[in-house]
C-alpha cells in the first residue's frame, strides 16, 4: 500500500477540471447578485471597456462584488488546503483548522481586539486574530511537543488549547455584552464587508502559506505512513510537521481574520477531492485548493442571494451543505470498504 502511494501520481486532469470549474463558478458569482446588472455590461467592465452602467452600478461591481468573490475564493482555498494538510500531518481524516486550536485562538485574538482594546483598535482586528492563532498553535506544540511521541497527544492538546481559548472568549463576551453583536456576527462568518484592501492583505499571506504547502506536499505523503518509514525515506518527520502546521495555521488565521469562523470547508473539500482523485493525497493539493475556492464562492453566492436583500451568514451555508454531504460521503465510503 505504502509504495503505491509514494509514486508520483499528480492528477493533472483533475487539477485542470478544478481550475475550469472555479472559473465557471466565479463567472456565475459575479453575474448574479442582489442587484441585477446585465451580463454583457459586466464583461465590458471586466475588460475595461466603455459601459452604459451608472457610476453607482460600476462602483457596486468593482468595489463590492468583485472583491467579495475574490475573497471567498482565497478563503476557500486556504481552508481546504490547510484542512488537507492537517489531516495528513495528524493522520486523522477528521482533523481540520478547528483542531489544534488554530481557529479558536484566532477567534480569541479577534474578541480581545473588540472587547479589551475597544474602538481605537478596531481596524487592527485581523492582526489580533493572526497573533491569537499562531500563539494557540505554539501553545499546543509546547504542551505536546516536548513529550512528542504520537500525533494523538498533539491533537488532544490542540483540543484542550482550543477549549481554553473558547472559554476565555466566552468569558470576555459575557463581561462585555454591549459589544456582543459585532463579536457574534464576526464569529458566524462574514464576507459581507470584503474590500480590495483586505483581499490584497489576505492574498499575500495565503499565497505565501500555500506556496510553502505545495512545495512540501510530496514529502507530506511520507508522513501518512509511520514516522519510522518517513525517517527511512530521509525525511525528518517533526521538522516537516512543524513547517507544514505553521504554514497551514498562517493560511487558517488569515482566512479567519478576514471572514470569521467558516466551518466544514477544511473537511468536506479534501475528502471529495481525494475520492475523485483516487486517494492521491497531497499531490492533489492544488486541485483541493481550487475546489475549495469554488466551494466557498458558491456558498457565498447563496449567502448573498437566497434571502435577498438580507444576508445569511456564510458559516451557516457551509455547514448546511457540508454536514449532510459529509455524512453521505462517509456512508458510501464505508460501503465500499
Amino acid at each position, binding site marked *: 500500500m505504502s509504495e503505491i502511494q509514494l509514486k508520483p501520481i499528480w492528477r493533472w486532469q483533475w487539477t485542470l477540471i478544478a481550475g475550469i470549474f472555479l472559473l465557471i463558478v466565479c463567472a456565475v458569482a459575479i453575474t448574479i*447578485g*442582489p*442587484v441585477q446588472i446585465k451580463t454583457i455590461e459586466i464583461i465590458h467592465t471586466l475588460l475595461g471597456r466603455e459601459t452604459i452602467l451608472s*457610476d*453607482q452600478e460600476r*462602483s*457596486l461591481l*468593482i*468595489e*463590492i*462584488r468583485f*472583491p*467579495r468573490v475574490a475573497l471567498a475564493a482565497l478563503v476557500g482555498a486556504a481552508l481546504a488546503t490547510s484542512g488537507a494538510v492537517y489531516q495528513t500531518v495528524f493522520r486523522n481524516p477528521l482533523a481540520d483548522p478547528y483542531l489544534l486550536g488554530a481557529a479558536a485562538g484566532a477567534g480569541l485574538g479577534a474578541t480581545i481586539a*473588540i472587547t479589551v482594546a*475597544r*474602538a*481605537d483598535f*478596531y481596524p487592527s482586528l485581523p492582526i489580533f486574530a493572526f497573533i491569537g492563532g499562531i500563539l494557540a498553535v505554539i501553545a499546543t506544540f509546547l504542551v505536546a511537543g516536548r513529550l512528542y511521541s504520537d500525533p494523538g497527544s498533539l491533537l488532544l492538546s490542540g483540543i484542550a488549547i482550543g477549549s481554553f481559548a473558547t472559554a476565555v472568549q466566552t468569558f470576555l463576551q*459575557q463581561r462585555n*455584552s*454591549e*459589544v456582543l*453583536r*459585532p463579536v457574534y*456576527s*464576526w464569529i458566524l462568518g*462574514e464576507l*459581507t*464587508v470584503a*474590500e*480590495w*484592501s483586505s483581499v490584497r492583505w489576505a492574498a499575500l499571506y495565503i499565497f505565501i502559506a500555500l506556496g510553502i504547502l505545495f512545495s512540501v506536499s510530496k514529502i507530506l505523503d511520507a508522513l501518512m505512513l509511520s514516522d519510522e518509514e518517513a525517517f527511512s525515506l530521509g525525511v525528518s518527520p517533526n521538522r516537516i510537521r512543524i513547517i507544514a502546521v505553521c504554514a497551514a495555521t498562517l493560511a487558517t488565521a488569515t482566512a479567519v481574520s478576514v471572514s470569521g469562523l467558516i466551518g466544514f470547508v477544511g473537511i468536506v473539500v479534501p475528502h471529495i477531492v481525494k475520492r475523485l482523485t483516487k486517494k492521491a493525497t497531497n499531490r492533489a493539493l492544488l486541485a483541493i485548493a481550487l475546489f475549495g475556492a469554488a466551494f466557498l464562492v458558491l456558498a457565498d453566492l447563496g449567502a*448573498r442571494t437566497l*434571502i*435577498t*436583500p*438580507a*444576508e445569511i*451568514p456564510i458559516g451557516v451555508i457551509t455547514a448546511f451543505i457540508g454536514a449532510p454531504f459529509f455524512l453521505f460521503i462517509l456512508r458510501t465510503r464505508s460501503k465500499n470498504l
Partner: protein
Amino acid sequence: MFRRIRKFGVAVLALSILLSSAASAIARENQTKYPLNIVSAGFATKLPAKPLRIISLSPSATEILFAIKAGPQVLAVDDNSNYPANAPRSALSGFAPNLEAIVALNPDFVILNKDSAKSDAIHKSLTNLGIPVMMEAAARNLSDVYREITEIGRAVDQQAKARNLIHTMKKRIATVIKTSKRIKSQSFFHELDNTLYTATSKTFIGNVYRDLGLINVADSASGADSSGYPQLSAEYLIQSNPEIIFLADAQYGESVSTVKARPGWQSIAAVKNVRIIELPADIPSRWGPRIVDFYELVAKSIK
C-alpha cells in the same frame, strides 16, 4: 338675613368638605396599597410593602426608576446601568444574573429582564426565597414603554411621578412628530454594526423613525428575520441609496470618516451630502425615558 348667610356658610362648608375629601381620594389613589399583586410579562409576584431596597438588572428599568424619583429606594443596579451617573452601579450582571450575588445584597424587590440568561429560573428561585421580582419584557413600541413606567411606578409607590413622566414624554414626542410632519419624507439606513446589521420598522427603534415619517431601506428585508434585525447585503444598500445614515455603532468606532472611506459608498446620497449621524451611546438600544431625546435628535437631523 342671618339665615341666608348661615345657609350660605353651610353650603360653603359642605362644598369645601366635599372638595377636600375628593382631593384626599385622589391622593389615596396615587398611593399604592400593599400587599400588591403584579403580573408583568406573564410572571406574577407579590409585594408585601413599599420596596426600599430595589435591585434593577436592566439599564432601561434603572433609567425609569431614577426618572420617577425612586432613586433613593434603589439599592444596586447592574453593570451596564451607566445612566444616570448617580445610579449605584454594581458588579451584578443583568445579562447573566447570579442568584447568590443578588440574594446576598438582601433586596426587597428585583427587576429582571426576560431576555437575560435563565430568567424564568431566576424568577422562580427569588420568588421561592420570598423576594418579589418584576419580569421586564423588552419594549416593542411606545405604549410598552408607558406600560412599564406605569407598572414600575405602581410597584415602587411613585404613581404620580410616573404619570407626570409619561405625560411629559407624550407631549414632547407629539411636538416632535408634529413638526417633522411638515418635512418631506426621506429614506435612511440605521446601522447596528459595520457588517450592515440593521433594524426594520418592526422593531422598537424602527418605530421611532416611522413615527417621524422616515422610510427605512431595510424594510424590504423584513421577511428575513423574525425579530426585525436583518443583515443587509452591501450591494443592496448601495442601490437603495439612503438619504441619511444613522450610526448606532458610533460607540464601537464607526464615524463619518470611516463610512466615507468605505469602498463603493461614495455613490450613496447620504455619503455624498455627508448626512451621516453618529448616534450617542446606549440611547438607541434602551427603552427608557431618554427615548424622547432620541426622537428629538432624529427630528433635528432630518430638517
